[in-house]
């Protein structure tokens, strides 16, 4: 079947199998490999993307049912070479180690901050509780998201401290 999904502000039309999951559509069909796949029971959250601004596990959404919705992936967080404060926060506070859970965590954080710009530690923990990080023990993720809350327009210096974007 033919689907058209808007991903990071761009309409992407493709011919797909109806059963194709959004996570595989993004990764294998569009080559947006920042969204990860870590389980088969919808427990890990490494596949989280934003659908119309709300976090969803893209392993539980059919690509076909994403048609007509706006999907944001980690690749869409940086705008015009300026990092999202959440991205910079993860760098500042060592919110990542292997980086596998990181895109999903950052997107959940973005949605949380859009709704609640000043979340408490407990609210942050609650927001990311559907996602597993095996490396960080979560405290630095919480701090990263707090950093972003405290620096809502921080982005500018990011490219300097977090290195240049990969080409």
């Amino acid at each position, binding site marked *: 079947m033919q689907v058209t999904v808007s991903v990071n502000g761009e309409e992407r039309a493709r011919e797909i199998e109806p059963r194709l999951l959004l996570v595989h559509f993004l990764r294998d069909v569009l080559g947006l490999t920042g969204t990860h796949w870590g389980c088969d029971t919808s427990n890990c959250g490494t596949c989280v993307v934003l659908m119309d601004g709300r976090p969803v596990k893209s392993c539980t959404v059919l690509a076909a049912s994403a048609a007509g919705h706006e999907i944001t992936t980690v690749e869409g967080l940086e705008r015009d070479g300026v990092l999202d404060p959440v991205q910079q926060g993860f760098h500042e506070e060592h919110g*990542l*180690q*292997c980086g596998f859970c990181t895109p999903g965590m950052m997107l959940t954080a973005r949605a949380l901050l859009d709704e609640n710009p000043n979340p408490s530690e407990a609210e942050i923990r609650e927001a990311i509780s559907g996602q597993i990080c095996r490396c960080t023990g979560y405290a630095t993720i919480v701090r990263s998201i707090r950093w972003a809350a405290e620096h809502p327009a921080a982005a500018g210096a990011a490219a300097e401290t977090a290195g240049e974007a*990969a080409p």
Partner: protein
Amino acid sequence: MSTTEERPIGFGRLKRKEDARFIRGQGRYVDDVQLPGMLHGAVLRSPYAHARIVSIDVSAAQQHPKVHAVLTGRDLDGLGLAWMPTLSMDTQAVLATDKVRFQGQEVAFVIADDRYAARDALELIDVDYEPLPVVVNARRALDADAPVIRDDLEGKADNRIFDWEAGDRAATDAVFARADVVVSEEMLYPRVHPAPMETCGAVADYDAVEGSLTLWSTTQAPHAHRTLFALVARLPEQKIRVIAPDIGGGFGNKVGIYPGYVCAVVGSIVTGRPVKWMEDRSENLMATSFARDYVMRGSIAATRDGRILAVRVDVIADHGAFNATAQPTKYPAGFFHVFTGSYELEAAHCAVTGVYTNKAPGGVAYACSFRVTEAVYLVERMVDLLARELDADPAQLRLANLIRPDRFPYEAKTGWVYDSGDYETALRKALEMAGYEQLRAEQAERRERGELMGIGLGFFTEAVGAGPRKHMDILGLGMADAAELRVHPTGKAQLGISVQTQGQGHETTFAQIVAQELGIPPEDVEVVHGDTDRTPFGLGTYGSRSTPVSGAAAAVVARKVRDKARVVASAMLEVSADDLEWERGRWFVRGDPDQGATIQEIAMAAHGTVELPKGVEAGLDSETVYDPPNLTFPFGAYLCVVDVDPGTGKVTVRRFVAVDDCGTRINPIIIEGQVHGGLADGVGMALMELIAFDEDGNCLGGSLMDYLIPTALEVPDWETGFTVTPSPHHPIGAKGIGESATVGSPPAIVNAVVDALRPYGVRHVDMPCTPSRVWEAMQGRGAPPQ
């Protein structure tokens, strides 16, 4: 403006260089590799834990329009690849030929156009199994009438793999015979799984014309894997390139070679196209390297006034259906004999029996430092049991028995020589950070009110950084690591290393080591890893060996460059090299500090036209192979506070204080991150995680719905502290930190749970201390270990 504290030249809180790609979703993991014409493999797995294979019919699968090939054990047999060697010198079936020996074992491999089609085709394979009796209980595996699992091994009539011991049995028995107090306990360190968020997988690309293989794989040891592929697949080693791109967590799960990797390689050879195999989560949990599964009986002997005299322990080690643990050859129980712990003992002895069961193979994984996890758990539980028996305070009992600083290097009763330590200072610091006295007072008050609060302590001594190579090898490969440092004419450098980050931040910390030694900014040092074509040989990252071994290599190679730079500087400045002095980043003339040359200037001159002394070659590049003289022995003192709900048995970790000593600290940000991650592992193991089996050998922990990993809601905000006791034999005094917290935290948590349950007279609860187990223990029905 950045301060030097934020941008240190050398050791300090440098933010990670590698973050730039990960926060942009530009990390490149194995499953991100897409090659033109690439096909996808999927593994058919056994539903039975033990069954004879009567027949396999793949014809329907072969007819699936998107299927390119189907491999079975018989096909591999024709190539001599149906079995492969394990890291413990056993053999393991790649695809089963005679019978299956655990649920989830690999039976066939389908190669198709895409991953969905490959899995569809698995459904079309018809296997006729004849079920056999199953044994999943390690003790019962030793019974005379237990089904023999490894009848493929010539003359094998039982399930015993090895009997191994350490320490002095007679001396230990003698001490126990005269001790005032002896306490014994049976405990199980249950089977758990490292479960990194990225599962295991590979992309194999065989070029028939060149006869060369490129293998992208989730490996913690790319060089060792290349050698093994050369030996197993009999491909010439120089034609094999193993690439470990970004690895999404390893924790020991990615040390071994799994049948899926071999099948991907064969699949690429057979189809002439690149083949990707990526396991799903249930395959990861059911079939790849589990951890622990040690059935232990420990005893501790002491005087009535609280001097610990001896420890002994008997273990039945469940290795699953194939002995595939990754550990140095001479040490079938890993470094378990460091169970002597952090205490001055008169004698110690352990006996370990390894057994086959109808469970997945593996055993050394999940940040265990080669079984130091099991050892530390055993001794720290025993010390707490002794404190209870003596009615002593567990902190005081430990303080009275810890090895004193002046006793280092300390030779433990099982032969280890601990390099350095100041244990008492670390423990006192943890007690102070926690407010131990106040906590005990609070506990007494709460007990009055019927509330269950527990305070648990754990002290650990780790043994990490294997070699030395003369004592330690894996499949004959000595445990050393090389480093290669190139200094370009402009003074920028490239460091090639043989160890493999899975999130530990090597691109940052190894650049800092070179920066520290050469005085150039860490941004000027590019760290190359994860590609056997571009890096020197070495055994890889596990057992916390990166800093102790490869970190030492990086320091040594940088010092070689510095020494060479001195010779070049002497030619540039026309003074004797002996008259030159080093300050960070620069050689200068003694007594005339203005006369000097920076490393950058020297690098340019070394590649330029300066006349060098006879026998000195141009350039500054250098390489080294580091063979550690001894292990390093990081240590730490942990304290955990839990609350137990008397109505449900639910345990909540309220506080966790961790004081770690890993010697010299290269990057405190990364060290703290490593500790945090390990503490979360500890909460998982102590309270939640379990790979269990039913009587028929069905795996009951085969998905993340059943195998419970802590989320942000189950862990507290960690309170970390540190002391610094450098290793005397390591070039920069660093000891390694990657596994300390995973090793040290479970006993502190279980000690806290048992402490909370003291009003109920509970002496021990086996991990994981789930609400139902805790509640059962409160009713006086502790689940007996198997």
